[in-house]
């Protein structure tokens, strides 16, 4: 199960005007031995509201560091904070690396990889690219990297260095939306048509074994359609979506919080396995989390309002269930709630898990 661990920030480097590369070191425990292309999920409170954001690891397996790239997004609380406030010595919380944006590495194989990256979508592609080039001496990597203009290209110098380091095995094609280049084909938007033109003139698509795509939605659709048209199957195409809007966790309805602004906490009594325990809990906390925090062995599994493992009955008081995909109407009428989705509304609640 995924837990948050403390990581010390050891370095923050600006790559371009609005993007930083953050180097991290685990403080005590957590398995941060990542696979190339994986991401870290961070959490941070802003004005009392927890925000979770995921950022891809940009380091290769042999770089010996844990690094993520964070590009500032307009209005993005976390990315702005990371770009403006985050500094070496600070401690930040993240879950262990996750994600399956990678293919198995085998030093004996000679594969041709084709990577597509849009803007900050370069981070997990870069991690894969560095690892492949270092660990598969017979493989080649072609990177098609789309950006608005020259000054928004993340890792531009690093890519040049990699080309020199792996002479003849790494090809980088920059596609720039607004800056003109020597070759017309390399200017404009990265879409299905651009792909087709690249496949006709620059990339031998028939020799490609695996393709990595990371960028915003329209780019992913256009490129994957072009790849499929050229005979690549689903298991040859690896995606990592950098959604333009990362949805956060489910929020409580604002209205209810305002109407009970008087008390921010609730006196809770929870019965489980025949025994009852009372404690004070925060109204911003789910009944399940409060129970777990108070050493009650409350049952739960998905924590998403789906599996109904955490079902309990409200005996006294009122809670607000923000999501319910598991309980039938009649169960709700009888007072059953999913404790992972339920926040106290009244100043006192009594809840029973044994019913």
């Amino acid at each position, binding site marked *: 199960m995924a837990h948050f661990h403390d990581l010390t920030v050891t370095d923050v480097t600006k790559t371009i005007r609005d993007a930083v590369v953050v180097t991290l070191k685990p403080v005590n425990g957590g398995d941060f031995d990542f696979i190339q292309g994986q991401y870290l999920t961070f959490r941070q409170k802003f004005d009392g509201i927890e925000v979770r954001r995921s950022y891809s690891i940009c380091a290769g397996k042999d770089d010996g560091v844990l690094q993520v790239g964070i590009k500032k997004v307009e209005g993005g609380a976390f990315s702005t904070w990371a770009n403006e406030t985050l500094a070496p010595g600070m401690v930040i919380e993240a879950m262990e690396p996750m994600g*399956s944006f990678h293919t198995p590495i085998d030093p004996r194989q000679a594969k041709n990889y084709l990577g597509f990256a849009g803007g900050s979508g370069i981070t997990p592609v870069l991690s894969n690219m560095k690892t492949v080039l270092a660990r598969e001496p017979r493989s080649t990597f072609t990177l098609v990297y789309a950006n608005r203009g020259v000054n928004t290209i993340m890792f531009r110098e690093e890519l040049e260095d990699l080309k020199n380091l792996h002479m003849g095995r790494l090809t980088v094609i920059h596609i720039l939306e607004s800056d003109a280049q020597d070759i017309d084909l390399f200017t404009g938007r990265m879409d299905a048509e651009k792909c087709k033109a690249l496949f006709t003139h620059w990339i031998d698509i028939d020799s490609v074994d695996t393709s990595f795509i990371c960028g915003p939605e329209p780019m992913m659709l256009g490129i994957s*359609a072009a790849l499929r048209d050229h005979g690549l199957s689903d298991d040859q195409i690896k995606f990592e979506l950098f959604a333009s809007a990362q949805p956060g966790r489910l929020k409580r309805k604002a209205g209810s919080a305002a109407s009970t602004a008087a008390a921010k906490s609730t006196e809770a009594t929870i019965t489980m396995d025949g025994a009852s325990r009372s404690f004070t809990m925060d109204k911003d906390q789910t009944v399940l989390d409060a129970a777990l925090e108070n050493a009650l062995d409350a049952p739960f599994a998905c924590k998403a309002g789906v599996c109904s*493992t955490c079902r309990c009955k409200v005996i006294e008081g009122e809670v607000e269930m923000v999501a319910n995909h598991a309980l039938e109407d009649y169960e709700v009428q009888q007072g059953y709630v999913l404790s992972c989705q339920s926040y106290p509304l009244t100043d006192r609640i009594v809840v029973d898990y044994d019913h």
Partner: protein
Amino acid sequence: MAQDMTIDSYLAQGGKLTNPTNVPPRYRAELLKIMATFVDSELAGAAGFADVINAGPGIKERIAAARIVLEKTDNADTVLNLMGEFGANTDRYANHHPWTDRLPRDTPPGTARNAHDMRLSVLNYPLDGWVDAVTMNLCMGLAVGVQLDEFLTSSYQPFAEAIRKITPVEARHTELAEEGLQKLIAQGGGPAAVAAVTYWRPRVAAVFGEGARDRFEQLKAWGLRRTPNATLGATWESRLDDALARLDLSA
């Protein structure tokens, strides 16, 4: 680059989601429901089959049964780990649950699920001896095959990838069942097999029960499903008929 595409329109055009953070809440709920159903069914199926390992008439049969138990548990683990990335407590999930619980054998076919887990309804019925277990494995294995085909194109890429690995393993279980049943029939187990087919067929069929149409359309728009249950059910019926014809068990 145009950055203003909504997730819904991206999915409607065949886009793939790749990790929990770019999954919208409602999609997440439906995806977790699909994954939980798969995991619970594999765990319940494995648990039920574990009980009949010793009923196998020979060493080879017991090895086959034990392998099925092992691999179904392994398949559950693969998908449970994906659920873990969404915050499911994977340690607790598998352990704190009576996976071998079943209804009385004579419970009529239906779609009611166990109140405490998301296993498919068919897995609430108990196995009754070796021939019954092998027959159930064949009937259900063919249904699982149809369902897995449906998930191969899931818009949640990590799930589709997991299913791609799981599909050939499950297909082998169904082959083992057919081979085993062939042997049992040759040894005079025909009448028991016919009785078992009669018992299991309607119960497996219920797996493809009519769901709410709106819900299916929504799942389809999100790329989590593509074929209506009625069509999947018909595919299963015809694959089962073919298998029964090969075994000379056609009624």
